[in-house]
């Protein structure tokens, strides 16, 4: 199938379809790469960035947990403890999320990290709980120590007051110096105890505050000294109530010492716990940071991958665009060339036609709309050629025809003169015609009267025939009677013969008579029949005659009418002939006019021949020489065809003139 055979619409549509197909392929490729890039991006956001985010959350929670721990240790508030618990909970949540993520992404490394972090966090939690218990115990111990210390100080103060009062009493009584001295001694000892106790209490505060075991080491030395001071005071004391007091102080001090030892022990353990906690916290943070770092690393890798994909996609998309542009341009140029080339050819062809060159040809052989247009143009130019040739031929014919016309018009003027002379002779013969017509009228009148008398007579003859027929019928009836009589006579004769036969010999003569009678009867019967036949024949003949006469009467009547009509017609003829006379005068006038008109015609025909030459010149604008040979065959018969109508076109004119003349004649005749 040739591409030129497709219609322009199909060409453009198929080009557009190719472009569309290329675009669709391009779109599919681009879409594939875009989805790949999207997958990479989603991998970054869903997997790596999430892991990093969660790890950061874990780290953050670990930090704040440690912070809260420090706060708690510092202020020992329940609020901080609660914060810490909530932080830990959040940390666990983050860890859970991380576990899920790692499981979903099959990240074993991250899973291990998360597991170890969880273990450490749990340990940390446990240690923290232990530490809290320890702290509580320490608090109790401190409270116990304060209580006991205060009780020792109170006891010593009480003792001092007793000694002072006793001294005052003794002074008032005026006791001896020795006794007074004893009181003073006891008082001094008690003051030493009190000082000692106060110093121990101060050391205790120091230790509790600093926890550096420096104060504790001093306390360890001082506590036995206080005990010894008690012993000294006991030695110089005799009163039972006072001894009891000493004993109370001693017990309180022992308890105090016990509490202090316990505190120290707890504090040591607490230190260990704290170190453990620090260690675990660090580990968790380390793990979180590791996970973060790993996440960041993976992010970097994923980003690189995505970048590579994007670069690849860019290259492919650019390549596809280039290919489609090249294809599109190629298709567009191809289609344009396909459509415009023949159109340009057609334009050139039309231009040359406009310049009057009918020799050019258009060689486009396509089956599309342009091809149809081309064939239409071709046929148009062919028609033009034919028409131009026809016009040329006609112009030359016209020249000849106009010459013929001038010759004919001269002949016409001559014949007009002849016509005038013949018109005169015609008018004289018309006068003769008038006389003969008058005679006709008279003859017709005579014939008319004769015809009417004949009609009357014929009617009378018909009546006579009818009467004859009636008479004949009557005769026939009478003859029937005679026949009957003959028959009866015959019967009688037979009877007579019978009677005679009976009579035998005597009746013989009678037999003869009977026979004779019978013969007569027979004869009369036969004759009657013959007459009857004759009568019936006569009746028939008479009836025929009657019929004929009946026919004759209307015929004669008709003849009379016709003769009357002839008379009327002859009178009309006479009038008509008068009119002919008038017409003849008119004819004469007309003939003279004809002569002058024919001269004018000659002049006009000369003008016509000049115009025909002009026409030839103007038709010469069209060039057909080359094509003339090609078209000659077809134009030959066309010329003949054109020539025939040309003559026929002139012929009707002449005919028309003739017919108009005859028309006038006919009109004249009609008036008669």
């Amino acid at each position, binding site marked *: 199938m040739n591409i030129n055979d497709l219609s322009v619409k199909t060409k453009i549509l198929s080009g557009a379809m190719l472009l569309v197909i290329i675009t669709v392929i391009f779109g599919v490729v681009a879409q594939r790469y875009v989805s790949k890039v999207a997958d990479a991006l989603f991998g970054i956001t869903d997997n790596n960035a999430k892991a990093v985010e969660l790890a950061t959350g874990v780290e953050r929670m670990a930090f704040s947990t440690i912070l809260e721990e420090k706060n708690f240790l510092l202020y020992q508030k329940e609020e901080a403890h609660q914060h810490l618990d909530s932080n830990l909970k959040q940390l666990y949540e983050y860890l859970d999320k991380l576990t899920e993520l790692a499981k979903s992404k099959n990240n074993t490394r991250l899973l291990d990290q998360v597991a170890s972090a969880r273990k450490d966090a749990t340990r940390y939690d446990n240690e923290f709980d232990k530490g809290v218990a320890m702290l509580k115990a320490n608090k109790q111990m401190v409270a116990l120590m304060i209580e006991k210390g205060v009780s020792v100080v109170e006891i010593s103060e009480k003792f001092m007051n007793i000694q002072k009062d006793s001294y005052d009493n003794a002074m008032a009584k005026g006791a001896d110096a020795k006794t007074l001295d004893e009181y003073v001694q006891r008082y001094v000892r008690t003051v030493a105890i009190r000082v000692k106790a106060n110093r121990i209490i101060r050391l205790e505060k120091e230790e509790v505050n600093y926890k550096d075991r420096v104060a504790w080491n001093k306390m360890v030395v001082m506590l036995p000294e206080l005990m010894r001071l008690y012993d000294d005071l006991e030695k110089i004391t005799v009163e039972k109530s006072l001894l009891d007091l000493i004993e109370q102080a001693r017990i309180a001090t022992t308890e105090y010492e016990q509490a202090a030892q316990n505190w120290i022990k707890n504090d040591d353990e607490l230190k260990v716990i704290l170190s453990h906690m620090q260690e675990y916290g660090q580990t968790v943070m380390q793990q979180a940071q590791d996970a973060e770092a790993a996440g960041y690393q993976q992010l970097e890798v994923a980003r690189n991958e995505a970048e590579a994909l994007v670069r690849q996609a860019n290259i492919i998309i650019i390549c596809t665009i280039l290919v489609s542009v090249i294809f599109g341009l190629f298709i567009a140029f191809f289609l344009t060339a396909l459509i415009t080339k023949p159109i340009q050819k057609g334009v050139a062809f039309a231009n040359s036609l406009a310049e009057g060159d009918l020799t050019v040809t258009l060689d486009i052989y396509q089956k599309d709309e342009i091809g149809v247009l081309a064939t239409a143009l071709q046929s148009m130019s062919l028609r033009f050629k034919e028409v131009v040739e026809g016009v040329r031929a006609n112009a030359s014919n016209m020249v000849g025809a106009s010459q013929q016309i001038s010759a004919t018009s001269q002949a016409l003027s001559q014949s007009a003169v002849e016509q005038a002379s013949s018109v005169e002779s015609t008018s004289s013969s018309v006068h003769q015609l008038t006389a003969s017509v008058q005679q006709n009228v008279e003859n017709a009148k005579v014939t008319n009267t004769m015809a009417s008398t004949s009609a009357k007579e014929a009617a009378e003859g018909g009546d006579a025939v009818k009467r004859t027929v009636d008479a004949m019928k009557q005769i026939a009836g009478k003859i029937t009677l005679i026949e009957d009589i003959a*028959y*009866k006579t*015959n*019967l009688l004769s*037979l*009877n007579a*013969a*019978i009677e005679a*036969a*009976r009579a035998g010999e005597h009746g013989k003569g009678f037999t003869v008579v009977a*026979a004779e009678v*019978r*013969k007569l009867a*027979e*004869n009369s019967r*036969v004759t009657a029949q013959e007459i009857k036949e004759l009568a019936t024949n006569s009746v028939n003949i008479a009836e025929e005659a009657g019929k004929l006469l009946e026919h004759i009467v209307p015929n004669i009547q008709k003849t009379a009418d016709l003769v009357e009509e002839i008379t009327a017609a002859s009178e009309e003829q006479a009038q008509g002939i008068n009119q002919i006379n008038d017409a003849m005068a008119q004819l004469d006038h007309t003939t003279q006019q004809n002569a002058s008109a024919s001269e004018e015609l000659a002049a006009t025909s000369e003008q016509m021949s000049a115009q025909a030459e002009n026409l030839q010149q103007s038709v010469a604008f069209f060039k057909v020489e080359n094509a003339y040979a090609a078209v000659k065959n077809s134009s030959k018969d066309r010329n003949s065809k054109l020539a025939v109508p040309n003559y026929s076109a002139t012929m009707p004119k002449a005919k028309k003139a003739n017919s108009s003349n005859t028309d006038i004649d006919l009109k004249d005749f009609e008036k008669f």
Partner: protein
Amino acid sequence: MVRLRSENQQSSQDDKSLANDAYQQFLTFLLGNQVLGIDILEIKEIIETTRITRIPKTPAYIRGVINLRGNIVPVIDLSARLYQYASELSKLSCIVLVEVELNHEMHMVGALIDQVNEILDIAEADLLPAPDFGTEIRIDFIKAMGKVNNEFITLLAIERILSIIELAEFQSITQENNQQFQTSEVSK
């Protein structure tokens, strides 16, 4: 022609009567197309057809009765009797009256014919017996075959045709009718 022939016949008959003297006279008539003959001596009279009164419950060949000068006479349709089809009445139809003997009394019986022809004299030598077969008519109804000018005419035995035995049953009817007729005549 007819006249001529009859003259000739007459002359020939005259000749025969002179020569042989033994001849019989026959009345010939037409019945349909057939020419038949009856012995003239058996005929009483020939009359024109008058009004024939039909009698109910009678055979087809009994045409009816006529009034003959005041007497009731039965009329037999000869065509119906001989050929089994009734003849049509025309202007030329006639009734031939014949006397038939019954119980030693003579009775008048009419025979309806289509047309009378003439009276022929046939020599006895020319009377031949009826053939045993080949005739349309019952053999016992044929008296003889008459040879006239080399043609045969069937001559009927009229007394047998109008057989009284066959007609006997009819007698009562005729008598009754006669009486009634006479009474009606008288009353008239």
